[in-house]
């Protein structure tokens, strides 16, 4: 199946230029504003730079063509150095359509291809396309939305199942997920505040802030936290809004976002592992979030190590039914056999002993050291929770690992998706006949999963299970 050579939409010139400009301006940061004050002196240079950027991007656009030829997708690019990239269509893992605000205003989309190459090699991006053109490319590559495909018959329509986020769950999701986002927003705010606001002013206002009586200070901080929380809730609202997961026999089609939308298709047989995450708030209220590790260079949700968000929030009760329809191979019981009591003790001792030494040292040398002691029970509580949640479950070809750093996570994988399996045993573990298991899964970057302090018998059993493949 061949197609003629095509260029991107002309608007690419402008949007790419804006992108370049942003990359130039952002590092300048605050100095850019001082520079604006003397704008008239520099106007000539600025205009020249703009012109160069525009012309360069124009030629870039002119030289960028794509076509389908002999079963592979062929991209030619590069102004001075020509690049020819051939991607075999069967090797394309997923096709994603995304828009951002600017593109959406003009009704254009961005198309992104994921291949098996590791993420750092870069995705293949067709930066600006019209809707029809994007749909056409998608169909050519065999990742079309069966809804809009011309030959869609009744059979395909009936085998499609659509999951939507109910309003109630969605509102809930925006509020629970933001518990993590809040820290990010705070940090981002703080780091950018450091750049924008002169140090002296910051120091002075900080002093005034501290001098405020506690009666006004505490509500002020509370108000600030709540405000930030609401901010991050709004961000999540726009990112996850209108979430829709469509399941066909071979594919997932995931649509999300309100202002900036993203449409992605993923082949089901590329799924390497399913991760079920429960943050504390979700655990209390009986919800969970579902991610998938896919092989390929998926790199969307940067904070989740490139995993694919399958469904943002789901009642735990409905999880089994959900997995059964979404990905039957991975479905099944996820109740894990937890680690034995002695390993829970051992896990608690591991951080507690060194921490105690440090705290004793600090509190004997410094007055304020005494105030650090509450860290110890907090650490113990966290480790206790961690040890309570770690465990494994083996069920035929399916392996479930359960662990917690902060968020309780259960990882489901199949034997033939595990790349390598490692069993560790330290001296102390040998004494208590415990062992640690870890395995590597292929994803955008090699992903390592680990369960510590398993019963040695279990660790051996898992190792044997894997070797008898």
């Amino acid at each position, binding site marked *: 199946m061949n197609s003629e050579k095509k260029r991107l939409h002309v608007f690419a010139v402008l949007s790419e230029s804006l992108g370049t400009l942003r990359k130039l301006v952002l590092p300048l940061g605050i100095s850019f504003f001082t520079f604006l004050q003397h704008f008239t002196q520099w106007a000539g240079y600025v205009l020249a730079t703009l012109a160069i950027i525009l012309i360069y991007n124009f030629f870039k656009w002119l030289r960028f063509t794509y076509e389908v030829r002999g079963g592979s997708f062929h991209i030619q690019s590069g102004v001075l150095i020509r690049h020819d990239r051939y991607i075999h269509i069967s090797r394309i893992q997923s096709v994603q359509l995304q828009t951002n605000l600017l593109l959406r205003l003009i009704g254009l989309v961005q198309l992104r291809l994921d291949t*098996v190459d590791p993420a750092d090699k870069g995705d293949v991006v067709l930066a600006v396309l019209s809707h029809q053109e994007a749909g056409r490319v998608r169909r050519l590559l065999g990742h079309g939305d069966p809804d809009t495909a011309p030959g869609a018959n009744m059979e395909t329509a009936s085998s499609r199942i659509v999951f939507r986020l109910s309003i109630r769950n969605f509102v809930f999701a925006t509020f629970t997920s933001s518990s993590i986002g809040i820290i990010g927003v705070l940090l981002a705010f703080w780091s950018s505040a450091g750049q924008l606001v002169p140090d002296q002013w910051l120091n002075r206002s900080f002093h005034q802030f501290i001098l405020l009586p506690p009666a006004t200070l505490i509500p002020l901080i509370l108000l600030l936290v709540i405000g930030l929380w609401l901010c991050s809730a709004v961000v999540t609202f726009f990112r996850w809004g209108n979430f829709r997961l469509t399941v066909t026999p071979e594919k997932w089609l995931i649509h999300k976002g309100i202002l900036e939308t993203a449409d992605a298709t993923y082949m089901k*047989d*590329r799924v*390497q592992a399913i991760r079920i995450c429960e943050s504390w708030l979700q655990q209390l209220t009986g919800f969970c979030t579902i991610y998938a590790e896919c*092989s390929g260079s998926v790199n969307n949700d940067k904070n989740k190590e490139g995993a694919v968000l399958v469904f943002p929030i789901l009642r735990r009760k409905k999880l089994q039914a959900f997995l059964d329809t979404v990905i039957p191979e991975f479905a099944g019981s996820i109740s894990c056999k937890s680690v034995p009591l002695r390993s829970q003790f051992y896990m608690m001792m591991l951080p507690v002993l060194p921490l105690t030494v440090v705290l004793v040292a600090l509190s004997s040398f410094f007055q304020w050291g005494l105030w650090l002691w509450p860290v110890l029970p907090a650490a113990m509580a966290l480790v206790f929770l961690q040890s309570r949640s770690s465990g494994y479950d083996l069920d035929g070809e399916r392996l479930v690992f359960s662990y917690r750093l902060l968020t309780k996570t259960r990882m489901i994988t199949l034997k*033939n*998706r*595990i*790349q*390598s*399996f*490692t*069993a*560790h*045993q*330290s*001296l102390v573990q*040998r004494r208590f006949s415990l062992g640690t298991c870890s395995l*590597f*899964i*292929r*994803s955008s970057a*090699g*992903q*390592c999963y680990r369960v510590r302090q398993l019963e040695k018998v279990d660790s051996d059993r898992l*190792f044997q299970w*894997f*070797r008898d*493949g």
Partner: protein
Amino acid sequence: MEKQHLDPGIVTVWRQRSLMTNLIFWLILAGFFTCTVYFSWPGFFYLIAGTLAILVALHLILYVLVIPVIRYRTFFYTFRQSDFLIRDGVFVIRQVSIPLARVQNVTTEQGPLLRRYHLVSVSITTAADTQTIPALNAAEAHVLRDRIAEQIKENGADEL
């Protein structure tokens, strides 16, 4: 197949490698000492130099005399019909199993030291991680490479 040790020649290679690193440390230390004398840097710099000298000597004893032997004695590998096993470690014992069907590529490397003893270091890469056998003798390494290549050919369709 029985579990196998590495080629015994590797102990010598490890020793020579550590010796080279150690020599570089001594050179740096000598430079530091000379500077201290010539530019009459404060007295406690001699103390620092002395401490560093002790550390480097310790490095010499450990990494040239003791550790290579222990590493040799605790490193095993096995090839079975369908998988490959590495077992190593002194305090923490590590056992890695890699099914041959998952192997993406096999890389052999030979530096000047390894070449003198006709050894080859073999890295086995899966889609997610890499495991290395520090030294096999050349003939054995090539047999291994061919065997894995055959396995990959057989399981060519298993590309997930």
